[in-house]
């Protein structure tokens, strides 16, 4: 894995939203939705970005796709052997790059145009990118439908005729239409029923092997993340607090927040609840984060210095990054404690 090529490198990414008040809409503060995030994704791997609502995971993914402009930082993306910084590009410059990174959305109901038939939905990116020949397009659409295991007969049906799982397959086929190298999937299975969720997760794994895709997988559900990802980045209030290979992170978490998240995830084993860590209070407000480490008010290992010093994300062992002042000294419970 270590010699693999980096496809995407994000450094010091920030996205602040101004809070405006009053008649003159004066800026009175900043919501620090993303506040200095750095990570890289290697070609062919899946990096999961996990965290609870408001942690900034979706904002990170939107900045990478340049659906919004970051406030600071760089987003280096490798296209055809050349490295470009997406952060500074203008609309026109971004356009030819967009085909290389595509998105799979969370809600398969609102992300498909109800007035277009399946063939047109999947074929639209092809048409926009210059495949004007009808027959050629139809051939490619059928190829894509086979790839995501949709029967060819569905090509002229409207989305309303489909279940959530089938709609998500349509969304994936559309994302794959232009042979992108990076797929950003924002909670792709959280709106689906469990029995269907497993089908879509398996499909994503198969497609990755088959087409050598690279995924940025944004999710809140740690059990889903465990099944699909090579590495995991855990976010809390706009920052990455821990980044590691999946197995290592689940077995021996280094950040107290990761430990609490793992212990809070319900496991389908009756009677496994006794060892649960219950965090006090709510997630910090990104408009007004606590001083020092943003997690300190909820952390059971917090010391006096955690209230003043802000920990930086450091690599404390090979491949193990953690942003915690006590990261080196704490021994935390992994998933073994759950069973």
């Amino acid at each position, binding site marked *: 894995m270590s010699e693999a090529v980096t496809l995407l490198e994000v450094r010091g990414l920030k996205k602040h939203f101004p809070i405006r008040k009053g008649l003159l809409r004066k800026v009175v503060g900043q919501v620090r939705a993303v506040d200095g995030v750095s990570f890289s994704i290697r070609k062919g791997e899946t990096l999961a970005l996990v965290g609870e609502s408001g942690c900034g995971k979706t904002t990170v993914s939107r900045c990478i796709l340049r659906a919004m402009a970051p406030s600071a930082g760089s987003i280096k993306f490798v296209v055809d052997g050349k490295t470009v910084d997406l952060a500074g590009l203008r609309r026109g410059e971004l356009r030819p790059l967009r085909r290389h990174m595509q998105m799979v959305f969370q809600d398969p109901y609102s992300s498909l145009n109800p007035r277009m038939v399946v063939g047109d939905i999947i074929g639209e990116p092809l048409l926009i990118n210059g495949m004007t020949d009808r027959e050629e397009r139809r051939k490619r659409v059928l190829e894509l439908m086979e790839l995501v295991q949709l029967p060819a007969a569905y090509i002229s049906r409207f989305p309303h005729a489909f279940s959530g799982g089938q709609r998500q397959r349509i969304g994936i086929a559309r994302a794959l239409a232009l042979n992108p190298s990076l797929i950003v999937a924002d909670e792709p299975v959280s709106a689906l029923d469990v029995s269907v969720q497993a089908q879509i997760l398996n499909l994503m794994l198969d497609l990755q092997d088959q087409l050598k895709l690279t995924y940025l997988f944004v999710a809140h559900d740690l059990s889903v993340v465990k099944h699909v990802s090579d590495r995991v980045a855990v976010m809390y209030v706009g920052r990455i607090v821990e980044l590691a290979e999946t197995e290592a992170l689940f077995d021996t978490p280094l950040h107290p927040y990761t430990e609490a998240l793992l212990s809070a995830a319900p496991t389908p084993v009756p*009677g496994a609840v006794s060892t649960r860590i219950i965090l006090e209070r709510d997630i910090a407000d990104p408009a007004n984060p606590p001083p020092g480490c943003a997690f300190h008010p909820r952390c059971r290992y917090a010391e006096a210095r955690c209230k003043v010093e802000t920990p930086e994300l450091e690599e404390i062992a090979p491949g193990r990054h953690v942003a915690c002042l006590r990261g080196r000294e704490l021994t935390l419970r992994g998933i073994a404690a759950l069973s």
Partner: protein
Amino acid sequence: MAEPILSVRDLHTEFAAQEGTVRAVDGVSFDVFEGRTLGVVGESGCGKSVTARSILGIVERPGKVTGGQILLRQAKGGAPVDLLKFNENQMRSVRGPEIALVFQEPMASFSQYYTIGNQIMEGITLHMGLDKKDARARAIELLDMVGVPQPSRRVDEYPFQLSGGLRQRVMIAMALSCDPRVLIADEPTTALDVTTQAQILDLLRDLQEKRGLAIILITHDMGVIAEMAHDVAVMYLGRAVETGPVADIFAKPDHPYTRALLRSIPTVMAKPRTRLPTISGSIPHPFNRPKGCAYHPRCSEIIGDLCETSEPPAIDTEHRQVRCFLHGGRP
């Protein structure tokens, strides 16, 4: 075991639409006991929420309860009464003091124009005959009980000023305001983050222990069931396909659907990057309910013509009820 507080017997609820009638709840039976939690689990369209609404008599039109019994053993004693025979006035004295409901979406279930204190007090003054001052004191006491910090200040706040977790706590306080004996919680933590979910589940367990509440917990999450419920009813397209104690059913599921469902859940224990066993196909649209056993098109253990044509009856074994021909009931 003691007598159940609430017994649902062969409940049927239908929705009449132009395209045909949807049998949303189609012969569901279960018992709820004091101090115990019954989990009702299933995927979308299985009828779990309609079951809850049927018990409280708040099924929205064009839905209608068309058959069965909902037997409640009232606090004042006496023989069980059938709630389906009650008129609207009598039902009003059941909702709140006997059975209360916690909704899934705490934001959508509050009025935005009244303070939370006001909304809690409304039920208290109506059912318990307290005056305004006492009702307010009781509201503060309730907020304190469910772990809302600074209750005497929070009581005057509006729902939009609270976080999702706090809102759900207030919702639980409101449900408990008239001392119900049965609490129905319809996906109480689905809209919440995991760490907040852990807090709310902990609160529910704690309240149950202190007050001997009977809880009906409706969820799609097998993890939540494993953690919270004593008994479970697994539903599929309007029917309870398997009912029994949680530990037994998780250890040895009898119905092929329960088995497949349990296998297809992602868990944090899995090896990274492993494929999950799946259930083929998807949940049928309620208008195209399959003939025979509704699960047969997706079932991996289907018995030839039998499952395609006839519906399996509910078979009782020692602690369990299963609707599957593999476990008896063949004609």
